[in-house]
Every structure is written in structure tokens, then in C-alpha cells.
């Protein structure tokens, strides 16, 4: 079972290599990508079942002992992230094949997409801080290529700022690694967990803040989120969905992992993170309200919801972290669903400007239904999974007597509803305000390929399934939170593994 741990990284990378070799034949590339990502789903589910039933899995690459070798470890948090991300990567690939544009035009799409998949998986399974840097880079370099695929002027413009801000974050990461290594003599997370408590409190807090800065840029935390709504909407349709669903959540995962595993309670930045979470929520949702472009609106909205996850973590209580884990899972699925539906809207209406389109509820009732379900969920209406997540977070906030953040999160919840209503009335109600749009909707060109609708429906169905299975999922999140609050076990298994 332990050797399975490396597969979510190795399978996509091998697939990517094969995909490069089969560049002249698009059908072969598609087959390879589909097989690799489907295999990833099965491996991830197997890992999840094994980890939840038994004990976390650890693999020392090449059999080298802990301080020398590279540790790969899967615990409950990694396993659930792997399952959700592999499902999203697969559905979005199907959607991209159905959409046909960038995927069929560029031979680079499939190999790079698989590298992105490998990078995301590697970030979740690594047990080594430097390896986390490498995984981030793998994911980011792939995302640079996917973001600018096509080389249109607005992609080049936003690609520049995206690449530069990511590079700056990477440099901060290297700097943090250098400082941590010189203070502790290791970059293995399990060993760091033992050595960081021996440092003086000031140094510990410094490291903690430095890592929050690094991961905060990736996660889109206030005030480091400005690059996100600028760059995400310019990516090719399907790619935005993956970026929105997964990339920021990898940053959130890294914050959760580093704060709970590496730092003792006195160096965890609880109250600081709470303030950041509050601002992230409010600024994100206000930004979304001001937009006119559907995908930009949703992108600002990601920022707002990153705040909820950080809010749960920042409490550092069992209920809080469980709520955060549940919310991350919920948000990955629901946000991907919303972006896929936004792609359908753009295809059907020929534009994603709220001020130009309208009346889709009559011309495309199916898309309206597909939008309504995740939109209600993300707004937190009962009985959807968003309600369960927000209820858990608000409950844990009240338990910890953090009334200010509870009030902010409820207010932002209302504003989220308002954002969704604005999208609904702009896209689905009324009449198209632009005659060319009306003509486009009438024409045959606006028909949405079945594969696109199918993939979007699958993700929406998954988001509904989250509601149906919210109970078991929340129990799982609670067990995950118990693990995260007792990092001694993680350390013991990773370090004791080679003996």
C-alpha cells in the first residue's frame, strides 16, 4: 500500500512524457490523458480508503532515511484533497476536449495539463518543505503555459503580471527555506515539527509569518490577491475552472499543513489569520459586486471564500479545522462547477458580459438549472453543502467567542447571495441587451457541444452529492482535524518509518 503514495505524481508525469511523444496524433494524446487521470482517481480513492481505515501511508523515495531522502506521506487531509482534485482534473479535461478550442488547436495542451496534475498531486503528498517548493513550481510553470496558450494580447498582459508575482512568491519561498534550514538543519516537515519548537519564540513567529506570506500569495489571501482576478479570467475557458478550483486551494492546503504541523500553538498566527480572513472575505465579495464580466465576478468571489477557509483554520479548534477542511472540499467542487457553467453560458450567449447578455432561462433552461444548483450551494442556502460548511464554521466561531468574524462571515454570506442574484438576473432573466447577442443565441453556432454539458453536469451532480453525503464527509473532516491537531502521530510515523 505504501508504494501507492508516489503514483498520483508518477502516473501523470509518465502520461505527459507519452503525450509529448504522441504529439502528432490528438486522439492518442486524449486517450493517454484520460487514462492517466482516470487511473489517478482510482489510486486516490484507494489511498483515501486505506488511510481512513488504517494509518497514514509514508514512502521514503529510494529507501533513503528521513533527513536524507524525500518523504512522501499521505494522511487524511492529503487523501481527501487528492480525491477531489483528481476528480476535478478529469472532468475539466473531458470538458476541454468537448470545447475543442485550445485543446484541439495546440499539441502542448495535453502534456502540460498532465504536468499541472502531477504538480497538484505532488503538493498534497510531499512531506518535505523543499519538495513542496518543487511541486509548486511544477504546477506554476504548467499554469503559466496554460494561461498564455494562444498568446492573445490580453493573455500576454495578464500573463506577465501572473508570472512575475508567482516568481516573487517563489523567491520568498526559497528565502524562507534558506532561513529555516540554517536555523534547524532540515527541510523535512516531520523533523521541522520537532526542531522548530526548540527555536526562540521570535524566530518561530518570523518563520510562521514568512510561510503565511509565501502561501498567502498562492492562496489569494488579503492583501496579496490582486493578481488573481486579473489573470484567471484570461485563461482558456476550461483552464480557468481548474485554476479557480484547485490552484488557490493548494495554497490553502499549504497554509493548513504548515501551521498545524510545523508550528507549536504559541507560534500559530491565530488572531492575525482571523483578521486577514475577515478582510479577505469582505474585499473579495465587494470586488465581485463591482464586476461586469461573469468570469471576473466569479474570480473575485474565489478570494472571498478563501477567507472562510482561513477563518476555520485560524480558530485552531477541532470544530474550526473540521469546518475549514469541509469547506475546502465543498468549494473546490462548487467553484469548478460554476466556472464550467460560466463556460457554457459564454458558448451559448457568445459573451460573458452581464450588461450584454440575458434571457438565457428561456433559450437555455438546462444551463440555468446547472447554474442555480452550485450558486445556491455557494451562497450557503440549506440544505446545500455550502450551508453545512458555513454552519460548521459559524458554529465553531461562536464556540470560540470570535463574534466579530462570525458577524463578518454572515454578512459576506448575504452579499454572496446578492452576487449570485446579480449574475442570475443579468444572465438568465430579461432580454439580451445587445442585438448581435440575440442573433447569436438564435443561430445554430451557439449550440453547446454535448461533451461540455456532460462534463459540467457531472461536476454539478458531484456538488449535489456533497450535499447528500454531507454527514459522512463532515465526520471525515472531523477525523482529519483530530489528526491535524495532534501532529505528534504524523511525526512518529514518518520518522519511525525506516526503523
Amino acid at each position, binding site marked *: 500500500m505504501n508504494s501507492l503514495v508516489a503514483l498520483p505524481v508518477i502516473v501523470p508525469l509518465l502520461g505527459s512524457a507519452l503525450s509529448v511523444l504522441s504529439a502528432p496524433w490528438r486522439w492518442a494524446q486524449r486517450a493517454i490523458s484520460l487514462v492517466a487521470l482516470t487511473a489517478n482517481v482510482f489510486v486516490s480513492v484507494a489511498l483515501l480508503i486505506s488511510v481512513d481505515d488504517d494509518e497514514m501511508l509514508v514512502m521514503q523515495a529510494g529507501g533513503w532515511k528521513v533527513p536524507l531522502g524525500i518523504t512522501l506521506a499521505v494522511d487524511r487531509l492529503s487523501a481527501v484533497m487528492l480525491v477531489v482534485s483528481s476528480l476535478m482534473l478529469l472532468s475539466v479535461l473531458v470538458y476541454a476536449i468537448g470545447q475543442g478550442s485550445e485543446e484541439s488547436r495546440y499539441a502542448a495542451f495535453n502534456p502540460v495539463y498532465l504536468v499541472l496534475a502531477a504538480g497538484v498531486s505532488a503538493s498534497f503528498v510531499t512531506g518535505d518543505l*523543499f519538495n513542496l*517548493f*518543487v511541486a509548486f*513550481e511544477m504546477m506554476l*510553470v504548467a499554469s*503559466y*503555459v496554460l494561461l*498564455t496558450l494562444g*498568446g492573445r*494580447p*490580453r493573455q*500576454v*498582459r*495578464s*500573463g*506577465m*503580471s501572473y*508570472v*512575475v508575482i508567482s*516568481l*516573487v512568491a*517563489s*523567491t520568498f519561498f*526559497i*528565502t524562507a*527555506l*534558506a*532561513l529555516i*534550514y*540554517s536555523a534547524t*538543519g532540515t*527541510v523535512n516537515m516531520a523533523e521541522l515539527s520537532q526542531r522548530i519548537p526548540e527555536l526562540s519564540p521570535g524566530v518561530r513567529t518570523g518563520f510562521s509569518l514568512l510561510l503565511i506570506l509565501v502561501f498567502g500569495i498562492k492562496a489569494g489571501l488579503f492583501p496579496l490577491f490582486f493578481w488573481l482576478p*486579473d489573470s484567471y*479570467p484570461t485563461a482558456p475557458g476550461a483552464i480557468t475552472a481548474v485554476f479557480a478550483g484547485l490552484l488557490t486551494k493548494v495554497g490553502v492546503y499549504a497554509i493548513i499543513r504548515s501551521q498545524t504541523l510545523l508550528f507549536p500553538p504559541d507560534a500559530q498566527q491565530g488572531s492575525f489569520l482571523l483578521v486577514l480572513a475577515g478582510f479577505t472575505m469582505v474585499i473579495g465579495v465587494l470586488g465581485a459586486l*463591482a*464586476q*461586469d*464580466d461573469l468570469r*471576473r465576478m466569479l474570480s473575485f468571489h474565489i478570494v472571498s471564500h478563501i477567507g472562510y477557509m482561513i477563518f476555520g483554520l485560524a480558530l485552531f479548534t477541532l470544530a474550526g479545522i473540521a469546518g475549514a477542511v469541509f469547506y475546502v472540499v465543498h468549494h473546490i467542487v462548487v467553484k469548478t462547477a460554476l466556472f464550467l457553467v460560466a463556460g457554457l453560458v459564454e458558448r451559448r450567449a457568445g459573451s460573458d458580459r452581464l450588461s450584454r447578455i440575458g434571457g438565457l432561462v428561456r433559450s437555455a433552461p438546462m444551463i440555468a438549472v446547472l447554474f442555480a444548483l452550485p450558486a445556491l450551494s455557494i451562497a450557503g442556502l440549506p440544505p446545500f453543502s455550502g450551508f453545512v460548511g458555513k454552519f460548521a464554521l459559524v458554529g465553531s466561531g461562536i464556540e470560540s467567542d470570535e463574534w466579530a468574524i462570525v458577524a463578518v462571515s454572515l454578512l459576506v454570506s448575504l452579499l454572496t447571495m446578492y452576487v449570485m442574484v446579480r449574475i442570475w438576473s443579468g444572465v438568465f432573466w430579461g432580454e439580451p441587451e445587445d442585438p448581435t447577442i440575440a442573433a447569436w443565441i438564435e443561430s445554430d453556432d451557439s449550440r453547446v457541444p454535448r461533451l461540455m454539458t456532460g462534463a459540467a453536469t457531472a461536476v454539478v451532480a458531484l456538488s449535489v452529492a456533497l450535499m447528500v453525503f454531507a454527514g459522512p464527509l463532515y465526520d471525515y473532516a472531523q477525523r482529519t482535524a483530530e489528526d491535524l491537531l495532534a501532529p505528534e502521530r504524523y511525526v512518529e510515523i514518518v520518522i519511525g518509518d525506516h526503523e
Partner: protein
Amino acid sequence: MSVLLALAAAFLFASGTYLLLQRRLSRILIGVGLVGHGSNILLLTSGTGGGVAPIIGTADPTDFADPLPQALALTSIVITFGVTAFLLALGYRSWRITHDDVVEDDVEDRYIARRRNADQVVEEEALAEREQAIEEDRR
């Protein structure tokens, strides 16, 4: 030695940061390179000080220099190199499109800002009209 390296890293960080804050991609690129070198020097100094080359069989292992920071720095150099090449390609593409490599403001942001101002103008006009009407009523 380590003071010299620390000064070198500080200088690279300072000049790199200055260049990063410029508007032209070519300058930003040089800035990225400098800051990257600064952090690599920092990585190198993070080991346990100097020593002989860490090759087993050539010397006593207790005299070895710490090999890990060197490996880490090598990895980070390779990554920075790749990304810099990508940025250069992006800059070239930008030059082909606009004959410039200035990183522009977000177009959509400007559009939204203008829209808000347009609303303001409309509101101000409406307010002025209403005041005029009240004035006329009074007469």
C-alpha cells in the same frame, strides 16, 4: 567570508527589488534574476560552513561541506532559469503585439472604474436637476 556573502545577498536583494518595481518587463526580468541570485546565496550560506567537497572516499566525512544547500540551490537555479526563459518569450510576444514590453494596467479594472464614474456623473446631474426643480417650485 559569511559577512561578505551576507552583504552580497543584501545588495542583490536591494537592487533586484528596485528593478522588480519597474514597469518594463526587461527590467523586471533582470530584477527577478538578481533577487533569485540573492536567495541562492542565502541558501548556500545556510549550510554548516565551508569544508572539502563532499565526495565519499576522498576525505574524512567530518570535514565535508554540507551538500544539501548546494543541491537545493542547484534546483532553484534550474527552475529560475526555466521561468526566466519563459518570461523572455512572453516579453518577445508582447513586443510583437504592442512593440513594447510595458506591463500594462488591468484593462477591465479601468473599464469598471470608468463605469462607476459615469454613474457618479449621472447621479450628480440628477441631483442638480432636482435642486433646480425645487428652486423653481419655490418661485
